[in-house]
């Protein structure tokens, strides 16, 4: 039985259709608002640093997870980094094959203590190596809307 097999005969007595009628509007919050505004307006990447614990967070966080202290200042980072781990995705959510496999990586972000999930772009799967240096590629300014997809992906630097 495929994982995506569906029950379609809901007109028969055994089944009953349902849904949760809710949509969500998520606020970025104090930290991520700064992060996405800087990408949208200036094409810059921001991190934030807890001076108490000496940890640099990327993307920006408004508090330190270790001491819960408030962090107000941000620091600019280049957004470059190294591939920490990667995977090659072959199937879509509905189990249909992808036209092109998608490359997904965790990026060790330079100048920070954090890793970041995004796509790899402009590179073939067989070329990707753990430890490979990468840089972020942004959409054109007019197309940016303060969203994670303003970053098209990371490509070899």
């Amino acid at each position, binding site marked *: 039985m495929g994982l995506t097999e569906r029950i379609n005969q809901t007109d028969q007595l055994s089944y009953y259709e*349902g849904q949760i009628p809710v949509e*969500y509007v998520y*606020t970025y919050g*104090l930290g991520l608002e700064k992060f996405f505004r800087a990408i949208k307006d200036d094409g810059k990447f921001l991190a934030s640093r807890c001076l108490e614990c000496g940890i640099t967070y990327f993307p920006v966080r*408004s*508090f330190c997870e270790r*001491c*819960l202290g*408030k962090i107000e200042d941000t620091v600019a980072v280049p957004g470059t980094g190294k591939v920490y781990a990667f995977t090659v995705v072959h199937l879509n959510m509905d189990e249909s094959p992808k036209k092109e496999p998608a490359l997904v990586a965790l990026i060790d972000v330079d100048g920070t203590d954090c890793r970041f999930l995004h796509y790899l772009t402009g590179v073939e799967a067989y070329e990707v190596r753990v430890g490979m240096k990468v840089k972020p590629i942004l959409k054109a300014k007019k197309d940016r809307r303060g969203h994670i997809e303003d970053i098209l992906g990371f490509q070899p630097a």
Partner: protein
Amino acid sequence: MAYQRVAIVGAGITKFVRRAHETGKELAAQAAKMALDSCGMTMKDIESVSLGTAPDAFDGVHMKGEYLSDGSGGWRKPYMRQFVGGGTGVFAPIHGWYHVASGMFDTCLVVCSEKMSSCHPHPQGAFKTIFDHTTEQALNPTLIWIFALEMNRYMSTYGITKEEIALVSVKNKKNAMDHPAAQLPMEITVEDVLNSETLAWPVNRLDISPASDGAAAIVLASEHTAKRITDKPVWIDGVGWNLDTAYWATRDLYYPRYVEKAARMAYEMAGITEPKREIEIAEPYDPFDYKELHHMEGLLLADRGKAVEMLLDGKTQRDGDRPMCPSGGALGVGNPIAATGLMKVIEIFLQLRGEAGKRQVPGNPRCGLAQAWGDLMQVGTVVVLRR
């Protein structure tokens, strides 16, 4: 039963608002840091963390316990989330009490955070699936329906009027004028309540607490630890919780038997035999105005059908003989579900310490109670506090 005595030694609370810019985890971090700062502690002093937060569907984040863990101080700590619907805010401190009472830990940070505003058009949409999907959901029930049915049954059983019940809303919203975290502090009249929009008779808009974003936190410590931290510990001397049948329609809606059972459990633990005399101040859960009266009866603080007399006599006013919801309650301070219950615990903590500022009740109370209520209106959670 052998266990360590547990004290509340610090507390923090954010402002309750309709739409916070902060994320749920940012709200949690603000309240948690305030609680730590209030007793001169840091995360290094915290041995365990307990998070209370209501349905994942509110925030639109599954595994909300995991999502909120960084804001709650869960980083590399023994951390657990618990959830009993609206009863969560008083269940979370009970859960934290267990951590310390058991002797496993000497300190526990208890955080309750809720961000309901992400849910559009309204969090009520998320509530739809708490009802049985085969027998009830297709009728499109909302929580307002079931409260309206319960309120109607309560009123008709004892001959209580909407005018009388509205006085609870008037009192609590006025009490909230003195609460710095309050979302809906206001001076209103019974007429204002009766003239507000009817949502589902007999429930009008001003009979109900608002949807809110907010967070609250407390620090718990074992007896020997607490005495090093503060000279004004407030002891959790009794805890209780109880769940009624899943078939809500078959319950005795006029009387919350499960609240009584939860209260009796807490009273027995605290050695309380005459709650009407010994519980000097209380924060019964008041998401709707009639619920304060309903819960006073379940908590055995009033005879059945007689809570309204205490209200009419002014006994439940802040300067009355038995102040109820001196904070302003869910009706006045706001109702970010899990955070509301903990706000109530914090109110009793501050009142017993004599630190409630303009809200301070007279008479130096020594013993008080906070209660919450939830799941599909079937769970009661109670803590008894003493100084």
